[in-house]
């Protein structure tokens, strides 16, 4: 049986005056219902573009590859057809609920509108459903709050309302793009709990896009690490946090001060800055920042490494030999991270 969501060799390119921006360049992954995929990367790595691509929200982009949602191909499907799926079978939670909700309409009206587009019901039924959804995401007095405007909600409440809206048609695929980045840490914890509970309840497939490794670790079953439009490492959450093999993943883990470890004297940042997508370095895009690039005898500069399985289900895009990577991790990287 084919997986619920299958993305094959997805490429999303934008023509700009400065040149072709390869925002997503050959991305493949699969996701089953009830599972969560975390996509991690820094700004400009292509993680948000991927999500908008799946939802068919890039009008001017050149998209190639395949996106199969439950046996239906989305790339090249008519925009009316994709619109019918959007909201109903796949939905999105955006980062900033204040700018993604309409300030002129009440929260309830916006949920009702989305629900009635996909379901032929009366306004009264839709309203009852909206109240019901607001209650389920933990908004107190939902029958009153349904008539509030977005600005009358606090940040956390707005994000809850957004989740209610996304879930109102019971979508099978939910994409959350930095769902908690705009929130305070205590509210973030509430929203993460809520998302985890709701996913279990709705049995939807969830894609969480974030730069925060903590959020990814909280939610994800599988993790995809993106760098310069490409997947550089893919594996289970355990693979990525306990046996990471790509130097970029090591760099991310080393840059992050952690509350669950003793503080070290120094963080281990990745040198340099993320590349511009117009001018991606040749060969391995990470090689100018990679401390181990010289171990590849020049291949890092010359050839783009393939995404290869190091273990079943654990894919790494790196020229270093798998044995060498494991040696580096065990001997150099891991001991340092643990003293952190």
């Amino acid at each position, binding site marked *: 049986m084919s997986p619920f969501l299958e993305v094959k060799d997805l490429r999303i390119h934008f023509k700009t005056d400065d040149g072709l921006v390869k925002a997503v360049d050959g991305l493949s992954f699969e996701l089953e219902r009830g599972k969560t995929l975390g996509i991690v990367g820094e*700004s400009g790595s292509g993680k948000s573009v991927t999500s908008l691509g799946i939802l068919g929200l890039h009008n001017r982009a050149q998209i190639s590859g395949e996106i199969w949602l439950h046996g239906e191909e989305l790339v090249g499907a008519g925009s009316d057809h994709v619109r019918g799926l959007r909201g109903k079978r796949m939905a999105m939670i955006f980062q900033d609920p204040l700018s993604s909700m309409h300030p002129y309409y009440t929260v309830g009206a916006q949920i009702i509108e989305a629900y009635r587009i996909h379901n032929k019901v009366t306004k009264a039924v839709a309203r009852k459903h909206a109240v019901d959804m607001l209650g389920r995401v933990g908004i107190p007095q939902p029958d009153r709050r349904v008539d509030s405007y977005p600005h009358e909600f606090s940040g956390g409440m707005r994000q809850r309302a957004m989740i209610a809206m996304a879930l109102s048609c019971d979508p099978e695929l939910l994409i959350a793009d930095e769902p908690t980045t705009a929130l305070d840490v205590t509210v973030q914890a509430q929203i993460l709990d809520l998302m985890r509970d709701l996913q279990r309840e709705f049995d939807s497939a969830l894609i969480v896009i974030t730069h925060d490794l903590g959020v990814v670790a909280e939610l994800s079953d599988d993790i995809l690490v993106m760098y310069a439009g490409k997947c550089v490492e893919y594996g289970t959450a355990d693979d990525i946090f306990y046996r990471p093999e790509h130097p970029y993943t090591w760099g*991310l883990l080393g840059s992050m001060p952690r509350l669950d470890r003793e503080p070290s004297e120094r963080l281990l940042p990745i040198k340099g800055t993320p590349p511009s997508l117009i001018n991606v370095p040749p060969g391995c895009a990470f090689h100018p920042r990679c401390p181990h690039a010289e171990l590849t005898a020049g291949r890092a500069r010359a050839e783009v490494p393939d995404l290869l399985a190091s273990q079943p289900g654990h894919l790494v895009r790196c020229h270093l030999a798998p044995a060498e990577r494991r040696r580096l991790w065990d001997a150099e990287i891991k001991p340092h991270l643990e003293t952190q």
Partner: protein
Amino acid sequence: MTEPLLSVRDLTKHFPVTKGLLRRQVGAVKAVDGVSFEVRKGETLGLVGESGCGKTTTGRLITRLLEPTGGRIVFEGVDITHVKQGRMRPLRRDMQMIFQDPYSSLNPRHTVGTIVGAPFRIQNVKTESGIKKAVQDLLELVGLNPEHYNRYPHEFSGGQRQRIGIARTLALKPKLIIADEPVSALDVSIQAQVVNLLEDLQGELDLTYVVIAHDLSVVRHISDRVAVMYLGKIVELAERKALYDSPMHPYTNALLAAVPVPDPRKRADRDRIRLTGDVPSPINPPPACRFHTRCWKAQDICKTQEPPLEALASGHLVACHFPENAPDKPAGVGAHPAEERATT
């Protein structure tokens, strides 16, 4: 003990809320409401809290970018609470600020040379071999190429811009630097570079920092002492290790428990202190202990009597009637994540 570099007593800032044509004052946002702390020479004091807790306002009051409503700010033995603009200017040499957003804090029409050299011109400081040389030295100090003197801010990445801002801050060799969310606009890998840079500079130039941030792990990494703010007040202030290993105020506990741990195996067995609801409005903060509306330990006394910020035996300053991990309690009672962390 030496005199602290900066001492703040009962600092308050109320922003008036006005209504109607005549702009009658109908209330006040009590952004900072009686905050006291000291900053010792050479240390880093972290100021953490959620949005709206008054941490940024506190930073702006110290640098006198805002006029305090009440209280006292003493910098190097001089009361600067209400000194006038003109008399403040020489003091600004010793007290500088690093801003959060490296995009809006640099003038896009000025070159890096102009931006970093501005403090010399404004303060009329003579440099030995000209402003240009001084600026180039500063750029080198913060890890930028001195040849980029003539470039504009848009030619740099976010991390590099933050370095430009830091170079400008350092130009006049300040004694105290207030850094307001210095890394929160940056990518993870760049954050670490800037955190390391700030630490290196502190060692090299003998700087004192007040770091304002919402990210508890960054604050822990960089600070010697940490103050936790909630709705305009400090609820807990302690040495870094003491605060993170055995937090005493329930709010500090809740904050620490809320930080997502980047370890997928720990999510199942994490101790869950979950605050419900949001931070109340600072226009109308809850009476007495401001945290009582969200606190799981709140009793009647918390609603009627405000707990003072008092030093406990452990050295923590805590404003709570029922502090956690109080020394009179046997160990192991009220286990919380920090204790687990200490053992793992």
